[in-house]
Structures are given as structure tokens and as C-alpha cells.
């Protein structure tokens, strides 16, 4: 970190960041374009933001997306945490490797295949497609991510904490909720956030499992762009970039502050 300045480093850093962020920067700039033509600059304006908030279709899609993301990530967190707990705690049994492999397999499964198989399943059981089917589909694939995050935390969890809880009179159920869950809560929360982001982001699985009545934002954007990029979509994307940036920065500041405070308290305690 404290190395000397070198032209090589400076150049590679610049290229790296330009590669990552130039497209987004162009998108943000053109969201403030006066003209309807996306590629021609005609002066600064915020009118597309105003129009965006008039556009019922986009607002509906955003609402559906948030609802789907909230419920699917919540279900995925519950199921993923239970799966992780069972896999880490149950010890050795016949077929354990098979089961844990099966939990993680959807991580590497192509989304098209997951989406198609879910679509066929929903048709087979005669379920009407809509927000509910998207929630179920998102729960299915994002619970694997939750279970990866939670099980890595559980693997480093001191087992004697649970034994101490049992020893002090807890039933195993009580021990889980009053000791294990509060301690692994950060991992559970980051699992939830991960599932939420994955759901917000998903286009492929959602378009397989959606019905005519419920369109999510990624589907809406994708279909709108096929008819031509409009400045409204640029404005919408800029808002999303803004929200993500604020979220990431505040989360990292909060966790850094937490770590610093803890280290300071631990130093004080030893004196």
C-alpha cells in the first residue's frame, strides 16, 4: 500500500477504472440530456427524471421488483440458514457429501436451465405464473448463496457456546434462537442482502417464470431497450446506480467503524 509512485501502476489503475466505470459515467451524463436522442448532447435537463416518475408502468415494475426481492430473500434466508445449520452441525452421515453438493450445485447451474426447469415445473403443477412464481423461483436459487455465506460463519463458530447454552438450561431450540442466531446474525444479514441483490438483478429466471400481470424492472428495462434506448431508462439506471453506491459506501463505513471500536475496546480491556 505504501509503495512508491510508478508510472506503470498509475497507468494500469487508470485503465482499470476507466474500463469499469466509463460506460456507467456515459449513462449518467446522458440521463441529464435535454434531447430525446441518446447519443447527441443538447444541454442539461432533469426532465427525464420527472417523466420517469409519471410513468406508471415503470413505477409498477419497480414495486413488483422490490416486493419479489423482499419476500424471496426473506424465504431464502430462512431456508438457507436452516440448510447451512443442518449441514455444518449434523456431523458425518451417509450421503452427506452428496447433500452438501446438491445444496451448492445451483450456484454453478446456468440460469437458463434453472429458469426453464422451474417454468416446466410450474406448468406441470398447474400454477398460474405471476409474482408468486417469481418469488418461489428466486427463493430457490438464492437460498444456495445464503447457505454458503451462513455455513462459512457456522464453521468457525465455537461449538461450546451452544453447549454452554444447553448446560445453562436451554432446549436446543431456545439455544439456537438465543445464542447461535444472534452471533451469526451478521452472516445471516449479509446473506439476506446478497439474496435481495440477486433478486433485484435477475432477468433470466424472472422472464421464464413471470406471468402477464407482473413485470419486474429488469424485464421492463430489457423490453423497453429493445425498442430503443430512451433517456428515461438512463434516468432510472442513474437512480439505481446512486442507490447502490450509497448502500455500499454506508455499509463499509459502518462495518469499519464497528471493527475500529471493537479493537479499541479490546485494547482497553487488557490494561
Amino acid at each position, binding site marked *: 500500500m505504501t509503495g512508491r509512485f510508478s508510472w506503470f501502476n498509475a497507468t494500469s489503475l487508470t485503465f482499470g477504472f476507466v474500463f469499469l466505470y466509463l460506460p456507467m459515467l456515459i449513462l449518467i451524463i446522458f440521463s441529464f440530456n435535454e434531447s430525446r436522442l441518446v447519443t447527441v448532447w443538447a444541454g442539461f435537463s432533469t426532465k427525464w427524471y420527472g417523466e420517469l416518475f409519471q410513468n406508471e408502468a415503470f413505477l409498477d415494475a419497480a414495486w413488483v421488483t422490490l416486493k419479489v426481492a423482499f419476500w424471496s430473500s426473506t424465504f431464502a434466508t430462512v431456508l438457507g440458514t436452516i440448510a447451512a445449520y443442518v449441514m455444518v452441525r449434523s456431523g458425518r452421515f451417509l450421503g452427506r457429501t452428496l447433500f452438501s453438493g446438491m445444496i451448492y450445485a445451483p450456484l454453478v447451474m446456468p440460469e437458463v436451465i434453472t429458469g426453464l426447469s422451474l417454468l416446466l415445473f410450474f406448468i406441470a403443477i398447474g400454477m398460474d405464473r405471476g409474482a408468486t412464481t417469481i418469488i418461489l423461483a428466486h427463493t430457490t436459487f438464492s437460498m444456495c448463496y445464503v447457505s454458503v455465506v451462513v455455513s462459512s460463519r457456522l464453521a468457525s463458530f465455537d461449538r*461450546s457456546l451452544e*453447549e454452554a447454552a444447553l448446560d445453562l438450561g436451554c432446549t436446543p431450540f431456545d439455544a439456537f434462537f438465543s445464542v447461535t442466531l444472534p452471533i451469526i446474525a451478521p452472516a445471516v444479514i449479509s446473506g439476506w442482502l446478497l439474496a435481495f441483490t440477486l433478486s433485484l438483478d435477475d432477468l433470466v429466471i424472472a422472464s421464464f417464470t413471470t406471468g402477464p400481470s407482473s413485470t419486474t424492472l429488469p424485464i421492463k428495462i430489457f423490453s423497453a431497450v429493445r425498442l430503443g434506448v430512451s433517456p428515461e431508462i438512463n434516468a432510472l439506471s442513474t437512480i439505481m446506480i446512486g442507490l447502490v453506491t450509497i448502500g455500499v459506501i454506508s455499509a463499509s463505513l459502518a462495518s469499519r467503524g464497528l471493527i475500529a471500536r471493537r479493537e479499541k475496546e479490546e485494547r482497553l480491556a487488557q490494561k
Partner: protein
Amino acid sequence: MAQTQHPQGVFAPWDDPAEKPIIRFQSVSKHFGDFTAIDDLTLDIYSREFFALLGPSGCGKTTLMRMLAGFEAPSEGTILLDDKDIAAVPPNQRAVNMMFQSYALFPHLNVHDNIAFGLKRSSMPKTEIPARVDEMLRLTRLEKFAKRKPHQISGGQRQRVALARSLAKAPKLLLLDEPLGALDKKLRNDTQFELMDIQERTGTTFVIVTHDQEEAMTVASRIAVMDEGRIVQVDTPDRIYETPNAVYVADFIGDVNLVHGKLHNDDQGRPSVHWGEGRTPIVGSMMDPAPAGTEVHFAVRPEKINIGTERPRDVTNCVRGKILDIAYLGNISTYHVELPSGEVFKAQATNSRRIARRSFTWEDTVWLWWSDTAGIILTR
């Protein structure tokens, strides 16, 4: 030793046939797959005892403790607590609490809530809990830290929180798993006396697991020395040290000189060990008589061997050798003396004189002698 501190006389319920043990292990075995952790073990522990399970790692002492806590079930045999078989009782319903080696303090709760954790899950009325927690805080001198989280206090304080938490429910039996392992030596010594004090004040039966023989000797009323899932000897610390019943115990507890030989009875009928052609047999005491000719070991503690430059008169056991090494420990010195036959004896002497005035040093020829009751003859 702990039992001599009792004002109403010697505390020795194990010698009293009318006394009923609080815990009885009856032919208990525990297997993990092919591995036998506990092998047909029978043991009684009495109320108000401070009982130490001592042995190297892997000897089964922790398994024994986990069976008492309810985290492991015996494969064979029964464990009785107050005459009731506890095999079917889950850990949360046993009147047994445990202090964990890692302390296992709940990091999300402060000191007060850690101590109250077990009380909230007991039959104690909610209104009485704060008073009981305060009592525990006073007992362990933690009043000032009640509102702190475990990461905000030092290692010694954490150890006391763990003790307070496990004592809060007033268990019939408190299990301590290497309780002082994480503390440095000075703090450990202080804490040992604190533990003994708390044990006597609360009148709780303590069972401590340790691999540190000094710790076991200091705190325990009785020690069980374990090896490979079996108990080799159960006795008071002084008897474990003075009259071990096996070479394993003699060697595990403290320092010892061991000589291998054949048992004989000398002309006065005293048991003696023939340990080589042309050497005077060593006379020692013997607990269990054995027929002459039995293969035996003679064990004698270094501090029971005298060292000097002149041959003493009227002693039964006396050998001559050359000083090979001197370990100077300040208050005492240990001399390693090599006999002409190659054996090395260790003798300890207090340094009552300044080191410069010592009358013998490296390479000097010295005499070692000890009384005929100083050492012990062991058949196993």
C-alpha cells in the same frame, strides 16, 4: 492440602463408610468407533469434594466430564447422580453446570446478562434474579464490570465471569474443564486459591479436568490419575505423591528416580530391590507385598536424596557417582549424578548457602544417600 484447611477436622468422606457418594461411575465405557475413550471405569465422588481428573491429553478425562454434563452418553455402564441414573437426562435438565475451557461467554450479552442467562431459564422467580446475579458478581469481584461485554474485559475477568455464570444456578456439581489454561502463570496461581476459596464458601462439589499436575495438587481434595481411559490411582494429593501405586503415577506427578530390579527380602525382612550384580540392594517401603523374585521398580523423589562429599555412616541406601549436571533454580538445585554403571540419579538440595560456597561442583565425586522409607517399591 485442601482437606486439612477444614476447621471441623479432616475432610475425608471417602474414608467414611456411612457417607454416600454424590456421583457414581459404575463400569462405564465409552467407545468412539474403534477407539475406546473410557474403559470399564468405576469411580465415586463425594459431596463437597474438589475432585481433579488428571492425565495427559487423550487419556479420557474430558470425555468423562462431558458424560457428566450430558454431552456424551456412556456406551456401557451407568452414571448415578444422587442415586439416580442420569443417562436419559438431557444436559439442560441436569443439576450440573460446566465451566468451559474457552469460557464460552456469550459475546452478544454483557456480563450481567451472561450470569443471568441460566437463571432466566430456571424456576427462579423473575424478581429474585437481579439479587442472585449481584451476589455472584460480588463473589467473583466483578461488580464494576456488570455492564461490559465479554470483549471489553481481560482474560482473568472473563474467567471469573464464566465461573460466576456456572455457579449462578447453584448446581449440585460444577465441572471445570482446564479452567485456568488460558491464564498466565502468576494469574493462574492467584486464581487457584480463589477457586478453592469459592468452592469452600459455596459448598459445591467441583470436578476439575487438568493436565497440570501442580494445579491438581494445589486445588484438589482428591486426584484421579488417568491413562488411556482407565484410572490408575485415586487418592489425596499427598498420598499420590508419596505413595504412588504405579510407575506411571510416580513418573507423571513430579520428578522421580526409577531403578529396575528384582524383589528380595533382606536379612531383617525388609523388602529390597536387587538392581545389578555386586551392588548393595536398595531398601524401600512397599504397599502391596509381592513374592520374592518379582520384577519391580524402585522409585524415589529427588528431594528425598541427600548429597554430600563424605560417605555418611549408618545409612542403608548409599551410592557414589560423579556430578554430570547442575540445574540451578534459585531456591533449590537439582544435581544429576552419574553412577559408575551409567545410571543417572537426580538429587535435590536447598541452596541454604551462597552458590560460591558450595562444596562440590561439576565432575566432583559425591555420595548420595536416602533412608530406607524414602523410596517406594512398585510392581507395575
